[in-house]
């Protein structure tokens, strides 16, 4: 009868494996220190949304700028498109401020009307007035979309050769 022996090289590999992996395993199983997952508290959503507005604004400004600097600017349709993009960029700035004002305004400034809805805003401070004004963002985003629509309509009305492409920039 022969006793089973573990070969030395295999033993060495096991030691190395446990030396390196055991601390990580411990960190993973201790619930109080679960660093692997980051929690997402409530304000994060607003921050991400605001970052989204900034990106949207940059995108629209960049789009308008590139149109202005390119040969596309010779076509009225693309000039209309660039105006729409600029208005969208401004709308993003407008909405960005609107979200900040919504955060700053006191909940107590809204009071219930006779209909039972919180349909009355008490203008206690300039923030309340600004909040009311900045809530009317459709005055910017609607014209922005209207200009884009007019640009597209003009492009479709043009002959195929000179609509979207630069084939006939004149």
């Amino acid at each position, binding site marked *: 009868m022969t006793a089973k022996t573990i070969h030395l090289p295999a033993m060495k590999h096991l030691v190395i494996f446990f030396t390196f992996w055991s601390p990580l395993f411990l960190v993973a199983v201790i619930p109080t220190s679960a660093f692997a997952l980051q929690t997402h508290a409530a304000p994060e*959503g607003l921050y991400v949304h605001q970052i989204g507005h900034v990106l949207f604004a940059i995108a*629209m400004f960049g789009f308008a700028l*590139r149109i202005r600097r390119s040969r596309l600017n010779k076509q009225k349709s693309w000039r209309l498109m660039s105006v729409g993009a600029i208005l969208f960029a401004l709308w993003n700035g407008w909405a960005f401020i609107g979200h900040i004002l919504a955060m700053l305004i006191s909940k107590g400034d809204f009071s219930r009307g006779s209909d039972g809805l919180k349909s009355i805003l*008490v203008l206690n401070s300039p923030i309340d007035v600004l909040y009311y004004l900045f809530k009317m963002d459709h005055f910017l985003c*609607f014209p922005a979309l209207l200009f884009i*629509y007019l640009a*597209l309509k003009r492009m*479709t009305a043009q002959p195929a050769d000179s609509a979207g492409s630069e084939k006939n920039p004149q």
Partner: protein
Amino acid sequence: MTHISLYPLWGIDIVGSLAMLFLSSLCLRQVLILYKRDREDALNTYLMWLIIALFVFCIFRSLGHLVKHLLVFSDHSDIWARIAPLSGGLNTVTFVVIFAVTLFFRNVLIFMNRMTSDRVRIETTSRQLLSLNQDIESVVSDRTRAEMALNLAHEIRNPVMIIGGLLRRMYRTASDESEQGQKYQQEIKHQIDQLESLVAGLEDIQSVSQDHFKTVELNELLRDAVEMVQPEAESKGIEMSYQPSTTKLPLKGNQQYLKVALLHLLRNGIEACSVGNYIKITTELSRQGPLVLIRDDGPGIPKQVLKHIFEPFYSTRDGATGLGLPYVRQIIKEHRGEIRITNNKEKGITVELRIPSHLNELQEK
């Protein structure tokens, strides 16, 4: 303390949201029409993606606002509180999508500009090719006509001359012939005279072709030729430069013939050179008249080949006719010019082309 009703604000929001829904749908419709018109147009495709992203943004935003008002008015604010994060989240995603789509606009413009410039270049080359084809056709037609006329003249000259001579002699010696016979002989002599002048006319065709010589500006002609072969040189990685003389180089010549000759010389240079080589073309006004120099730093021509380079049917390349350079020399000779090809001291060859201006002759004419 001032109070203000939120109803006007809500009214604007509802009407605005509905208008945005309507307008974004119209935008989508327009961009789809544009896209379907030319699906291969990069700019139309790009616009379609951008408008789709804006359309999705408008849908999420406007529907979110409308649902909010609907739930608040129907006293279901608690449901809205649960939906609101999802609506806001989707809104944010559309912002990022619009941002991402817009990033590609620059690339689309670069792509479109490249396509436009390539198209212009192709159109220019195509026009030049067409013009060259016409030139070659005209050259070939002239040559064929002249050759046929010369052959014909050569073939009929001798018999006509002999017949003419014999008849004249007969006419002088035969004094006792009847009146009718003399009349016939006179008629034959008249016809023979006509045939002789026809032969002379056929022989003159070659010189008549000289009438096609007009004032040509050599710098302009060479610029056209260089522009035609430049893309070929670029595609082979050969640097081709052209430095015309500061003064104009007018000469009396045949534009088509000269252009064909210059193109042939330039193409020979391009075929001989490879990546990293250069071809320098310069012109100047020498004492003997306009001078064209075409230098390259290619492999050069071996001495034993250089001796035979202008001989017809002599070629070291497979598939070549060996008629190119003899033809070039023929054209230059017809312009009373000179062509020399020499190996450079270091690398490559120099083609030296001297063409007298002949302007005085043209003015005399």
